[in-house]
C-alpha cells in the first residue's frame, strides 16, 4: 500500500509565492479586452453590435462597462481597425463599481475610507463564507482551485468557513436567481459586524449575461452592500487572490476608471 505521507513529502512544495514572487499560473490566460481610442474609426460601432451582454455602448464615444464583460473576445474579432485588443489584464477587482466603467471622461472616485479601515484590521486572517447564488459552476471551480497545492490560499491567512457566524467576508457568485435571493440575504444577516461582501464573477457584478428572461438576476447591486467587485467569466484563481488581498489592503487596486495600471 502506498505511503501517502512519504509521497507527499517527496513531491515537495508545489505552492507559488505569488504575488510576492513566483509564477501566477496564468500564462496564456486572456483577460479583458483593451480599448485604444486612437484607432477607433468614428461611426463604426461594430464592437457594440458584437457584444452579447451590452457591455459596450456608443453614445457619442465608445464606453465599456467591464462589469458586464464576459471576456468572450468577440469585440476584438469584430473591430476592423484593431482598436480593441486581447490582453493579459485580469486583475480587475475594484472597490467602487464605477471604476469598472471606461468612458472618455472618467472622473476620479471618492475613496471609501471607513470600509477600508475595517478591512485592513483583518489583514492577517480572513474567513470567507461563499454563497453560490446561481452561478454556472465556473467560479466555484476556480474558488475550489484556490485550495489546491499551487495556490494554497491558507499561506495567505485566508480560509473558507462553513458558518456565516464565523465569517468576515461574504463571497457571492452568480447573478442572484429568484430562489437564491432570500437564502443569500439571510446569510448576510447572520454574519456578525463588521462584515464585508465581494461580488465575484461578472454575473454577481452586473447579472450579465444572466440578466434577461423570466428568471433573470442582476447581481448584488441593491441586494447587499458590496465592498469589492471582481468581474471575469470566471475570474482566474490569481484574480481571486488579488481581489482578496485588495480587500485586505495588502495590494493596490489596478483598475481606475476602467483603465488598467500595471
Amino acid at each position, binding site marked *: 500500500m502506498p505511503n*501517502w505521507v512519504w509521497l507527499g513529502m517527496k513531491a515537495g512544495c508545489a505552492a507559488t509565492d505569488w504575488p510576492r514572487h513566483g509564477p501566477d499560473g496564468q500564462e496564456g490566460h486572456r483577460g479583458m479586452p483593451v480599448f485604444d481610442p486612437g484607432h477607433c474609426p468614428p461611426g463604426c460601432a461594430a464592437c457594440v453590435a458584437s457584444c452579447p451582454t451590452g457591455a459596450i455602448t456608443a453614445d457619442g464615444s465608445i464606453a465599456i462597462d467591464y462589469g458586464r464583460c464576459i471576456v468572450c473576445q468577440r469585440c476584438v474579432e469584430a473591430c476592423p481597425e484593431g482598436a480593441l485588443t486581447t490582453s493579459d489584464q485580469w486583475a480587475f477587482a475594484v472597490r467602487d463599481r464605477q471604476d469598472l466603467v471606461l468612458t472618455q471622461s472618467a472622473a476620479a472616485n471618492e475613496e471609501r475610507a471607513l470600509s477600508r479601515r475595517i478591512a485592513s484590521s483583518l489583514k492577517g486572517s480572513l474567513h470567507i463564507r461563499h454563497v453560490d447564488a446561481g452561478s454556472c459552476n465556473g467560479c466555484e471551480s476556480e474558488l475550489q482551485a484556490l485550495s489546491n497545492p499551487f495556490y494554497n490560499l491558507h499561506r495567505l491567512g485566508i480560509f473558507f468557513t462553513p458558518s456565516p457566524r464565523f465569517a468576515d467576508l461574504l463571497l457571492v457568485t452568480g447573478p442572484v436567481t429568484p430562489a437564491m435571493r432570500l437564502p443569500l440575504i439571510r446569510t448576510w444577516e447572520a454574519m456578525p459586524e463588521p462584515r464585508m461582501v465581494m461580488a465575484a464573477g461578472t454575473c454577481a457584478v452586473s447579472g450579465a449575461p444572466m440578466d434577461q*428572461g423570466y428568471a433573470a438576476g442582476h447581481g448584488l447591486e441593491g441586494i447587499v452592500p458590496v465592498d469589492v467587485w471582481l468581474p471575469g467569466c470566471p475570474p482566474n484563481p490569481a484574480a481571486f487572490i488579488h481581489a482578496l488581498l485588495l480587500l485586505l489592503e495588502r495590494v493596490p487596486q489596478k483598475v481606475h476608471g476602467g483603465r488598467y495600471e500595471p
Partner: protein
Amino acid sequence: MNECESRILTASELRPAAEDLVRQGKRFQMAYAVWEGPTVEVRYLIAQGGKRPFLLLKVRGEGELPSLAREVPLLGWYEREMMDLAGVRFLEHPEPWPLIVHEGMSVQPPPLGPEREAESRLAGESGPPTMPEVRADQVQDLIWGPIRGDVLESGEHHYSYIGEGILHYQMRLFYKHRGLERRFHDLLPTQGVPLAERISGVGSVCHALAYCQAVEAALGLEVPPRAAMLRVILAELERLYNHFHYFGHLCKTTTLKVGEAFGTLLEERVKQVNARLTGSRFLRNCLTVGGLRRDLAGEGIGEVIRTIADEGIAYLERLNRTASHQDRLIGTGILPRQTAFDQGATGPVARASGLDRDMRRDHPYAAYELLHFMVPLHEQGDAQARTQVRMESLRGALDLIVQAAKNLKPGPVCAAPLAPADHGEGLGWTESPRGSLYYAVHIRDGRLFRVKIKSPSFSNWRVFPFTVHGSNMMDFAINEASFGLTVAGCDR
C-alpha cells in the same frame, strides 16, 4: 431531425407505443414540448440501441397528454418540467407536484408555453418541498442547504433518518434555475454559443459543442476536418480536468488528504495547459457554428499531455492500491442495472451498472470515428465501479488527446457560412465527462425558435437518491462524490 426516425402518434397511441418500446429494451433519452400557436408538439427522443438511429416520437395536442411516468419512470422529471414551464398537463402523473418552479413560487404565463411573446417573471418565496412524511419512532428530519459548507453549488438535501441510517432522502434542486432555454429564443444561431458555454462552466466545451453540432445539422453545415479533430482535443481536455477534479474530491471524502492534493494539483496543471492552448482555463471562446473561431496550436499538445499522463496514471494506480480508500468505495451506494435503466442513469454512472452506452462510439461526432478508444464497462454498480469507469475513461482521454494531436492536418478551421436557412431542426449531442448531453435546436426565419437542453446531471440527479435510501450517513458524501454531479447544468 438528423439521425432520427420520426413517428407521429396520437395521444391515445402514446402509452401502448411506450410500453412496446420498453419491452424491446429501448431507452428514452429526453422529452420536450414545442408550442406553435395553440398547438403543442411533445417530442420523445429514444435510443434504439447500438449504432441504430434515434427514434423520435411526436405527439400533437392542445396541452393535455397521458403521463408515461409509470411505464417509463425516467420521464417523470421531463413531464414535471413541461408542466412547470411549458403549460402542458400530464394526466395521472404519479408525482404531480412541481420540479423546477418551487412550491411557493410561480411563473405565469408559462415561459415556454403558447404565449410566446408574453413577459413572465419567476416570483414568490421558496416554500417547503412536497415529500413523503416518514412517521416512526425517533425519526429525525435534517434539511441541509441550499447553502452548504465549503465551496459548493446551491442545492438542498432532505434526510429522514434514525441514528446513522437514512430512511428517505430527497434532493431539492433548481435554486439556480436561470431560465436559460428561454434565453435562446429569437437569437441568431451564432449568438447562442457564449450562452451555451455558460450553462455549466465545467462543461463549457461539451455544451457549446452539442449546441454547435445541432445548429450545423439544422443548417447543413460541414465542419472542416481540422476543426473536427481540434474539437476532440478540446472535449478530451475537458474530460481530463473534470476527472482529475473528481478523484481529488473523492479523496477528500475518504479523508485521503495527500491524494486530494495530488488530484487537485493534476487538475490545476491541465487547466494551465488549457489556458496556454486556448486562452481560457475552461476552454471557452474557441467553438463556433461551423468549426472554431480561430486555429489552435494543437500539434504540440500530445507532448505536453504526456508529461501529465505518467504522473496521472501512477496516481490512479496508487489509489487502487490504497486499502483505506477502497474500503470506503466497495459496496457503497449500489445502483442495480434495472434501476439505472429505468431511472435514466447516464455516463460513467450507467457504465458502472452494466449499461454499455457511449455517444462517442454509438453516434460518433466531431472526429471520434477516426480514433481508437475503449468504452469501459463494469457491472457491480457501486462507488468502486463508478470510480473504475472514470479511471479508465481518464486513461482513454489521455490517449485520445495524443492520437488526435498526431492526426491533425493543416487546413481551414471554419466552414464558409451558408446563406441563412429560414427553417431547420437539428439534434446535437456529446458524451460529456458526466454522460450524454443533448441539444435540440429549432430554427424559424433564421432565428432560434426553441432550444432544448438535456444535461447529464439532470439524468443522474434523478437516479442518485435510489442509492441513498436505506444507506447510512457516513457513506453519503463518498457516494455523492462517486456520482460526480454538478448542479448548474441540471438547473439551467
